[in-house]
């Protein structure tokens, strides 16, 4: 048995310690944000934040996540609410500005990769408030462990959505 904190809630999980975190999140905890894309840390569809840093849950074992704070796509609104000091009631009514920007810009095509794109954007904008286009491209391409891939080709819309989210977040909404 392992204990992990997922989206602010302590969860005890029965799965074997070597189980990749992705299967724990999807099958044991019934979260649908992170997707299985490659199982090889090559695409980013399964990304989550582990203590604020983007990791690939398909190659991260449950034991490696034990005792740490996992944030999935489902947890982004609460993360933003906490950062902004919103009341719990307000928090349930909000989306993260990144999610709102993704809707405003109509970024997803099929949307399968967008979990990882929004997770990566969160990590980036928590670190760099107003990234340049070059910094955005760098974050989605060369920062470890691999580029975030989108087969539908939504890259233009992703960059526009990150820029929009940066503007809203800088304003503090």
């Amino acid at each position, binding site marked *: 048995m392992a204990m992990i904190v997922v989206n602010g809630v302590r969860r005890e999980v029965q799965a074997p310690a070597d189980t990749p975190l992705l299967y724990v999140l999807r099958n044991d905890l019934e979260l649908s944000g992170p*997707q299985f894309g490659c199982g090889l840390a090559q695409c980013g569809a399964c990304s989550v934040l582990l203590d604020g840093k983007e990791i690939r849950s398909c190659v991260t074992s449950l034991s490696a996540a034990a005792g740490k704070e996992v944030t999935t796509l489902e947890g982004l609104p609460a993360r933003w609410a906490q950062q902004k000091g919103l009341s719990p009631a307000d928090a349930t009514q909000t989306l993260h500005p990144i999610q709102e920007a993704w809707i405003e810009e109509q970024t997803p095509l099929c949307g399968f990769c967008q979990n990882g794109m929004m997770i990566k954007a969160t990590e980036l904008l928590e670190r760099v408030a107003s990234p340049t286009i070059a910094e955005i491209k760098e974050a989605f391409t060369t920062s470890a462990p691999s*580029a975030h891939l989108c087969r*539908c080709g*939504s890259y233009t819309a992703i960059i526009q959505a990150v820029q929009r989210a940066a503007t809203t977040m800088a304003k503090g909404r």
Partner: protein
Amino acid sequence: MSHKKMTQTKNQRNVFGAALTRRGFVKTGGALFVGFGMVGVDGLKNSAKAATTRNSLDPALPESWIEIHPDNTILIRTGKSDFGQSTTFTAYRQIVAEELNAPFEAITTVVMGDTDRTPDGSGAFDFLGSGTPNIRKAAAYTYQALLDLASQRLSVAKTELTVKDGVVSGAGKSMSYGDLVKGQQLKLTIPVKGDLTSVMGLSVDGNPPMKPVSQYTVIGKSFRNSVTASKVAAKETWASDIRLPGMLHARMVHPKSLGSTLTSVGALDKTRFPNAQVVVKGNLVGVVAPTEWEAIQAAQQVAGATKWKDWKGLPGHTRLFDYLKRDADWKTTRVTKSDKSKGDVTPAMAGSAKKLTATYQLPYMKHAPMGPTLAVADARADGTVYIYTHNQNPQALRGEIAMMLSTTPDNIVVRTYAGPGHYGRSNGGNAGAEDEAVILSKAVGKPVRVQWMRPEDFQWSTQSPAALSDVEIGLDANGKMAAYQIDHYMPAMQDDRPIGAVLAGLPTMPAPSEKGVFIGSTVNDISDPWIYDGVVTLAERGHGTFQIGQKASPLAVGLRDHSMRTPGQFQQNFPRELAISEAAALAGADAIQFRMDHTKEERVIGVLKAVRDASGWETRPSPRAKGAGTGAASLRGQGVSVMFRSATYWACVSQIAVTPSTGAIVVEKVTVAVDPGIVVNPMQLKRQVEGGTVMGVSIALLEELQFDESGITSRDWRTYPILKVADLPEIKVVLLNRPEVGSYGGGSEAANALAAPAIAAALFDATGKIARRLPLKAEYVQALLKV
């Protein structure tokens, strides 16, 4: 199903060939349901095949095309599944709202894909049906029925009625659609034709009056995709989320090669995997377990101990084009000729002042969805089978599973959920895993979820076929094309056999052959409509053959192919458009002007002018500089391409920089002009074009299936790389809205096919060296520029 003569009775009225019936009155609720039936209406020949009587929408049941509810909300149903095109959630709602004169927001529910909940079938292609998709006609019939009802209720002649925002008015009286249907059970039966579980599905028949384009108020606006918010907020149910009570997870142990038969199955290590179980049927091996992680590990362990016969029967990707040219059988299959072919090319070619002779080559490519294929199947004790998956043609899958199980489609239900874009690979009904889940579920008597691992998805799914084309162009003394001849060669493109059924030795449709009909044939039709009517003589021919390895493989599979975005047309448009750019250079003409000089089609000229103006095109002949350098200084070039597809005209300009010393190409800017006639939803179309363009740049620079003599060796995103964000060019989309055309064309395909010929032409413009093969990888370009 019986054919019933329709007569005008008190409870049944004939509305432009559709039958409106009042089935009764109810105290609460009430609705108008639009179903379909094979009604024998005067002047309409209905030939719909009654595929099923159970687990399909029956005209007698309330499930139907369109439902008008008493609260003024509207539900629409379509057999088409949205795979990222957004069309069912945006354009379809706009089209229905337009035909009904109802607000866009009134359409609160879109039901799509499920075989027992949607009426018409067919695949996730040609959504806009060249301007008249099924849902438009269904809405047009519904509008007439609503007017008919209102005329009776308000005692006002139909011609005196007007409708705005779902409220019918006339002679000072008015009534909303909701009030018209309140308290009644109304049913409209509309005529259809076709075969539900065929690839093309059913189509709505007849000619109901349609709203004049000049009165459009909803079409043309940028409504949002209603499913985007639920995906972004992690509220969407994806196919990957489906879990049934008692469900087991499974992983497959696929053969060692594309021709390997099973020698012996490896023993399962029960001490490590106490809850796992191995299922074997013919050459199909699967491992099931209660948890996904146990299934994955147990399948890996069994795979390591399973023995297969070796097989080597493929040319390998390095010898592919030699094989296609010399060894493939192009003689058995009928040669096709385009209907635009005209005149005698041979003497015109012989008498030409200048001549281009060239061969162009395109590799196999993968659809490469971001997630591997998966399905949950529940084969129940009563013989019914439920499949929960993500599929571009659920009704066709239903037919294939029925065939595999030697049962009728009545017993099969397919439910579809969101998933990764498939780009055509499941348009024939399957992507892999669906049939395997059914076989395993039947074997273990429990619901089973099969998901392929990433390498399997590359190695066992279908590919977009390789192609080569021989071109000859003859220019007259004035630099005009007097003769154009092209011979396209491509293996069969549509293998719809479910692979698990093939491996298990269960019934499937036949492999593509010269005797096959329609898409089951090896025939290579001309798919790229000719647009240069100024060319004096023209010969376009298509040569087809069997899939590579199909006949040699003991499994009869080889390299299985399936249509991928802009199928066949991409393979034919790349050689044509690159050759036209080369011919322009031979004539000493500007590549855009040269194209304009060879067509009278005003819409072709329109997109060319638009792309020229928006891209910063330099009007001059190519190449810019004679002779390639080998230096580290980058050279810049421009190239253009044109296409006509799905009633839409496209033109593209690519501007690139290439570094001769490394061969690296940077695509700096891609400009696409698109004229679909009426633009239904500018924002969604723009996003579709941007996305397709990125795929197009990826195809041009990077994509090539690797395979050896035994099978596919591309196994992940390192061995099949696609474009990364860092390599994203500036993309400029110019939408040409032309209401005067009176119809709307499709916009989800073609954008992916435009970049490659324009980029190759830009490389030629920059360096004077022509690359007639994709992908334009650095090593290839570097070697080309050294010569």
